[in-house]
């Protein structure tokens, strides 16, 4: 009973906050709604007994979203002064979301204590459980049955990395390289080589 109530609450909030993500005009608000939505998704995962995935959601997504938040703030060229002024305006929403999260946390823990929701398969039987622990189960599948896909996904990440480097990394042109600081060269420097005397004739310059 408690699980069911929790499920519907989380599910409703996931959808509602996802809608708010795209509805709100203020990008900062969107990010806040997004965090709420991720949290609720994580709550759903907890309810079905996938604690590991729930933690991943919180750590990776919510964590990453914080970074994304920074990027957004920096890239959207938002005036920090007005941001600070807007803090007061944003605060009520932030506080409200925080409160909702707190309430959910309590409810979620309660529901988790009451046991996981049973997931079904089309033929009506319960999904098989390889190991007691989430992590063990996932690991066993990833490195046997889904090995090929797991490695392929790795290559996707590698390609993404290569792509990022290709598109952004710039070799300094040779002309600029000469102006580079070469510490070894600086250390090897001695007065004899660094200075010389010259007595140019009047009206003539000196060739360095």
């Amino acid at each position, binding site marked *: 009973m408690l699980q069911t109530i929790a499920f519907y609450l989380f599910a409703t909030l996931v959808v509602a906050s996802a809608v708010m993500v795209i509805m709100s005009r203020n990008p900062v608000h969107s990010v806040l709604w997004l965090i709420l939505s991720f949290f609720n998704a994580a709550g759903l995962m907890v309810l079905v007994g996938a604690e590991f995935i729930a933690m991943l959601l919180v750590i990776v997504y919510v964590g990453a979203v914080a970074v994304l938040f920074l990027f957004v703030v920096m890239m959207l060229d938002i005036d920090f002064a007005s941001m600070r002024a807007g803090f007061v305006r944003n605060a009520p929403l932030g506080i409200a979301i925080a409160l909702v999260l707190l309430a959910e946390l309590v409810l979620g823990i309660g529901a988790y204590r009451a046991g996981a929701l049973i997931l079904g*398969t*089309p*033929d009506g039987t319960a999904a098989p459980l390889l190991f007691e622990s989430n992590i063990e189960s996932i690991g066993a599948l990833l490195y*046997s*049955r*889904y*090995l*090929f*896909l797991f*490695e*392929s*996904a790795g*290559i*996707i990440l*590698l*390609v*993404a990395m*290569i*792509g990022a*480097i*290709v*598109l952004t990394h710039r*070799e300094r042109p040779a002309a600029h390289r000469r102006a580079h600081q070469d510490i070894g060269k600086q250390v090897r420097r001695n007065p004899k080589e660094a200075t010389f005397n010259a007595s140019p004739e009047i009206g003539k310059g000196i060739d360095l």
Partner: protein
Amino acid sequence: MDFGNYLALIAPELLISISGLVLLLVAAWVGDSAARPISILAALVLGVACFMVGPALFDGASGPDTNAFAGQFRADGFAAFAKMLIYLSGIACLMIAPAFFERLGAMRAEYPILILFSVLGTGIMVSSGNLITLYIGLELNSLAAYVLASFLRNDGRSAEAGLKYFILGALASGILLYGMSLVYGFTGTTDFTLIRAAMTLELSTGALFGLIFVLAGLAFKIAAVPFHMWTPDVYEGAPTPVTTFFASAPKVAAVALTVRVSLDAFGLQADAWRQIVIFAALASIVLGALGAIGQDNLKRLLAYSSINNVGFILIGLAAGTPQGASAVLVYLAIYVVMTIGSFVAILMLRDADGNYVENIRDIAGLSRAKPLIALILAGMMLSLAGLPPMFGFWGKFVVFQAAVQADLILLAALGIAASVIGAFYYLKVVKVMFFDEPAGVVQGRSETGHWVLLIGTAIIVSPLGYLLTIPLGLLADRAAVSLSLLP
């Protein structure tokens, strides 16, 4: 689980990924000066991969023995046919690239590596027997493709092409994933065979949604109307060797994948998707032809041409029979040759300053400055238009034949009628090259590698290509049968 067997089945993928990693290290160590050797090595790797898929192709391998990792990966004859095309077009794109980028001072060692990984992704796509494999392959290919599209990062159009491709591709991926999650939700499985088994009866609305979304996501990849919008912009903006790649390997993979998903996973629900495929086919033919007519840019024109050709391919798919699948493969093979030949011909045209000529006005009277190139390009155009002496006619013929034999006579008739519109702009290119006053823009010599490719493709596209009809038809038939379409 017999890992040894699995590794043998994924041997081409293993080879390509390991070579890609090794070459990446070489590239990181030696730098861009090694770009040319790496390209050659990458081409060699793909050549070896061709030999590795050869047996499966010629035997028309099928059945449980070709399934690796519990059916997630299928190394059957169908996949082998597509992979052979993909690898060969990959080799072509590796051959033409160094000269192009070096002239622009933009050759980087990452290009062959990205091509390799993209080819790897397309290979996984055509071998997928599972929605997850499908998605992994698609993303692997796409990510590399996004980067390749904006490979000339200092060129605004190239960057724009990459960005547009990326964003729309992400949207398409979203649509695809949503569909996959629905299919999974309503069938409880991501395996094609099991989905097929689960989708025997009347579909629930949710499953139907899933099916449509999955096909829509794939339609983006093959650039069928109305998911074609990215094609002209990306083809035009991307560097020409990359465009050549886009028009060949990923296109083959996406089409083959769509055929596999439609006929295998959704094969028993053909009534649900056939009419949509028919609409997409006709819309692609018409819109591709209409769009091409007004174009000044040759690459953009060829982009519309590819949309147009996808329409014909979809006619074969709409037939929904092994024969239709075979016709699709034959068409793909011919189309790939024609499109590579056309792009190589365009790649060989430079003005006095060494800039690449892409505008149709600049090739006016090309027959006088570069008679052989003009002749071959004209041949390619006539072949793309499907005029009988050229080999391109055969592709259209088998597709229409399949449609007629599947009782889609009206579709075949409409397709033939619409192909007349397409003939207009192909013939316009021929007319401009042969009958207009010479613009005198094109000058300079072309690289031997380009000539080899151009003449090779020209021979296949020429009426001599008809010598290939029987072996090509045999291989395609075997490949289509290996899809195991029977319930």
